[in-house]
C-alpha cells in the first residue's frame, strides 16, 4: 500500500478541511486512481460526501494498493490535518505520504518553508508607544558588567535565512475495505426543486441571525426550549425564489430571495425522462408551489461554512424530506483551465 503526493491548492484544501471539521472531527478519506473522497457522518446533523478530482489538491500523485482502482481507505482526524495544512500554507513546497512511525500508520506531511524574519516587525506590541524613548539605551558606550550587553548588528540577525523542513505527522487508521463497504451515500429521491443559492455569506449571516433570535425568544419563554435547537424553514420554488423562515411562538419572520437561477437539468444524467421529473411538475404548478424542508439552525450554520470554498452552490429540495447542497469548487490557480468549474462536488445531506 503506497500513497505519496505533492500538495497543490493548499488554500482550497485547507478550506475544505475547515468546512468538514465544523461538522465532525473525524473523516473517512477514500483515495483511488482518480478521486479523493472525504466523508463525514456526524451522529446527528448533516453528512458531507465530498468528491474531488485528484488534481484539484494533489500533484505528482502516486497511489498503489491491492484493491481495485488502487483504493485506500483512511480514517483521519480533521483537526490535526487542518493544523498541518495551516503550517503548509505559504510554504515553498509540501508533500503528503502514508507511512508508519513506531508501527502506527501516519499521514506524514513534509513542508519546506522559510520564516519571515524581517526587521520591520521588530518589537511589535499592542501598546501605542515608541519614539521619545530616550534614556533607554541612551549611552551605548557605557561599560556595564562583563561585556554581556553586546550590541547586535542587524546583519547578524538577518543573515543566512535557510529553508526549514517541517514534518507534520497526522495519525490515521487504515480501514479495511470490509469496514467501509456498508457505508453508502444515502439515496434520496429525485429533488422537487433545484436552485442556485444566493451568496452563502449572506445566507449564513441571515440564518445565524434568525437562529439567534429564536434562541433568545425561546430562552425568555422558559428554559425547556434551550435544549432544542431552533428550526428554520427553507423553501424554494422553480421560479428562482428562496425563502428562509423562522416561525416561533412569538414571532414569524421570513426572508425571500428572488431572481435566483434554477439550473437546467441534463437529461442524459437522469434516470427518468425529464417530463416525469418532479421538478417539471413543480414548475408546471406555478410559483406558488414551494418545496419546503426544516433544518436545525445550528447544523445549518455549520453546513453553510462550506461557503468558504467560494464555490457555486446548488440546493436540491425534496419536499418535506431532504435537502442536498452540491458545491462546485472552482480550480483556482490552474491557469490552463480557464474558468472551468470542476466536477468536484460536495454533497451535504439533511434529514
Amino acid at each position, binding site marked *: 500500500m503506497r500513497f505519496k503526493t505533492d500538495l497543490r491548492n493548499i488554500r482550497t484544501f485547507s478550506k475544505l478541511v475547515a468546512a468538514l471539521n465544523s461538522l465532525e472531527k473525524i473523516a473517512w478519506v477514500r483515495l483511488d486512481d482518480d478521486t479523493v473522497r472525504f466523508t463525514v457522518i456526524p451522529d446527528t446533523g448533516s453528512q458531507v460526501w465530498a468528491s474531488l478530482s485528484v488534481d484539484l489538491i494533489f500533484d505528482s500523485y502516486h497511489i498503489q494498493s491491492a484493491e481495485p482502482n488502487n483504493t485506500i481507505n483512511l480514517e483521519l482526524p480533521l483537526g490535526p490535518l487542518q493544523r498541518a495544512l495551516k503550517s503548509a500554507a505559504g510554504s515553498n513546497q509540501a508533500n503528503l505520504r502514508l507511512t508508519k512511525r513506531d508501527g502506527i500508520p501516519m499521514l506524514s506531511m513534509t513542508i519546506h518553508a522559510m520564516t519571515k524574519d524581517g526587521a520591520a516587525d521588530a*518589537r511589535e506590541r499592542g501598546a501605542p508607544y515608541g519614539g521619545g524613548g530616550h534614556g533607554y539605551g541612551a549611552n551605548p558606550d557605557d561599560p556595564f558588567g562583563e561585556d554581556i550587553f553586546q550590541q547586535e548588528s542587524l546583519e547578524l540577525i538577518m543573515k543566512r535565512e535557510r529553508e526549514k523542513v517541517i514534518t*507534520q505527522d497526522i495519525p490515521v487508521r487504515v480501514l479495511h475495505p470490509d469496514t467501509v463497504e456498508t457505508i453508502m451515500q444515502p439515496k434520496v429521491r429525485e429533488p422537487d426543486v433545484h436552485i442556485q443559492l444566493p451568496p452563502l455569506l449572506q445566507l449564513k449571516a441571515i440564518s445565524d441571525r434568525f437562529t439567534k433570535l429564536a434562541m433568545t425568544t425561546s430562552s425568555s419563554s422558559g428554559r425547556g426550549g434551550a435544549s432544542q435547537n431552533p428550526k428554520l424553514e427553507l423553501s424554494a420554488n422553480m421560479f428562482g425564489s428562496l425563502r428562509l423562515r423562522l416561525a416561533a411562538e412569538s414571532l414569524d419572520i421570513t426572508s425571500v430571495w428572488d431572481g435566483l437561477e434554477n439550473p437546467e437539468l441534463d437529461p442524459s444524467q437522469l434516470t427518468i425522462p425529464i417530463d416525469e421529473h418532479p421538478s417539471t411538475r413543480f414548475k408546471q404548478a406555478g410559483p406558488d408551489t414551494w418545496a419546503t424542508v426544516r433544518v436545525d439552525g445550528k447544523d445549518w450554520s455549520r453546513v453553510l461554512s462550506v461557503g468558504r470554498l467560494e464555490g457555486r452552490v446548488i440546493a436540491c429540495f425534496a419536499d418535506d424530506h431532504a435537502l442536498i447542497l452540491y458545491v462546485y469548487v472552482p480550480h483556482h490557480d490552474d491557469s490552463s483551465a480557464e474558468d472551468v468549474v470542476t466536477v468536484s462536488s460536495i454533497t451535504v445531506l439533511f434529514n
Partner: protein
Amino acid sequence: MVLGFTLSEEGVAILHDALACMFKFSDDVCLEAKKDKLILTTLNISKSAYICFTFAASRFFSRYHFEGNSQYRDRFFCQLYVRSLLSVFRARQCGGESTGRESVIERCEVAIEDGPGKKSRLIARVTCRNGITASHSLAFEPKTPTHAKFDKTEATNHWAISSRTLRQLMDHFGPGIELLDINTDDDTRVVNFTCFTEKVQRRGANSNEAVLKKPLHTNIAVEMDEFDDVQVEDKLHIIISVKDFRAILQHAQMISGDLTACYSSPGRPMKLSYNSDGVLCEFILMTVGEEDAISQKHKTGRANSAVANAGRQELDSGARRASSVVNESQARNTQAKAPAKVQTKTQAQPQAQGSPRNSAAQQKTPPRPRQPGFDIRPQPNPPASARSTRSDSLFVGQVDDDQQWEPLDEEEEEEAQNDRLEWNSNNEPKPSTLRISSYANPTIQTNASEPDQPMSGLEPTQRLSQVRRFGLFSS
C-alpha cells in the same frame, strides 16, 4: 530611601513585558538592587524553571540611584507580587476610555523606602502624557532571592539563533503537545525541534480509536548553518517543556536579537539567554532526565513517567544552601516585622492584591486563573468588537475573512478547538460500521464530566495534585 529610579516610557513597557513573562512562571518576583544593576528573579512552583532579568543601572534607566542603608549596605532585596507590579506598569493605565497617546505613560519614578522607623514600601509614581500622575504604594516582603546555579563549564553544548525565527517555527506546533525535544544530526547538518506528548490517552478507549486522538507530531529541521556558534554533541536529545519554551520565546521575540542556549546532558539544567540594550534575560530550565528520555523514545507503558520524573528534578538553588544561615537570621528578622506589616498594608490598601506572604499560601490553594497562555495560533475567534459588529449587521461585506464561516455556536467550537482533540470513547463494538461518528455533542460531554461544577465564582478547575504529576509544568 533605599533605592530610587526613573523609567522612560519605553522602559516602563520593557519592564512590563519582563514581568508579564515572569507571571507565566510564578506569582512572585524577587527584586534585587545593587549599585550598578537591578535584578528581577523568580522560580516557578515546581522549581524547574528559573528566570532572571538584569537591568543595567546606567543604560536601562533614565535615573538610577542606590543609596542603601544600615541594613542593606551593598544590596537591597525584597519580594513582590507580580500581579501588582504588572498593574502599575501597564501602559495606558491612567487614560480612562481614551486610548490616544494622551493617556500613554510618559515616565515612571520608583522609590523604595525601608529601614527602621519607616514603612517598607515601593512607591511608583506614574506620569502620563495627559498630565495625570498616579501614585502606587506597594508593600513588599524582605526575602533573600534564590538564584539557580548553572555551571557554565559543564554546559559544553550551545547554539544561538534569531529569536524571531525560533518563535515563528513554534507556530508550526499544534495544540496538545507538552514536550520539546531538541536534537542534532551531524550527518544531515540539522538541528531538529520535535514536539510530542506522552500524555496517557483516556482509558477504556479502543486502541484503534486512541490512535486518532494523538495530537499532531511535528518535527522541524533547521540547518545548522542558520545557527551561530553551534557546538552540540551529535544525536544528543535534550527535552524541555513546550509551555516554558513558548513563554520564553514570546518574550524573546519582543526583545529581538539572538537567543543562546547552553546545556550539558539530559537531566541537567539548560540555560537560555538573550539580551538587548541594557537588559539581560536568562532562563534556567530543568531538562527531562536521560532514562526518561530513553523510555520516551521506546514507547513504554509508563509513558507518563518521564513527565512525572521531570517534575521531581529541581534546579539547584545556590543561594539557598550557601546562605541558609543568612536566610535564617533574615527570617527571624522578618518574622518579627511581618505580621504588623501585613496588617498595616491591608488597612492602607484595602484592595491591594494581597501580600507576597499571602500569595505564597495562595499558590497552594486554587491555582490562580492563568493568563491565557501564549497562543501560537491566531485567535480562533474575532475580537469581541468584530463579533458584535457582525451580528448587528445583516449583510456582511464580501471580505475574505475566514472567521465569517465559523458556525454559529462559536463558543462551543472554540472550546473544541483549543482543547486537544478528544474523541468520545465509545466502546460499543460496531465492527461493521465506521467509527467516524463517535464524537458526541461536546457540550453534553463537558456537562457530564463536571456535574458538580459550581455555577458562580472562580473555582479551581483542576486539582493541584493532578497538575503536580506533570511537575515540570508550572501550571
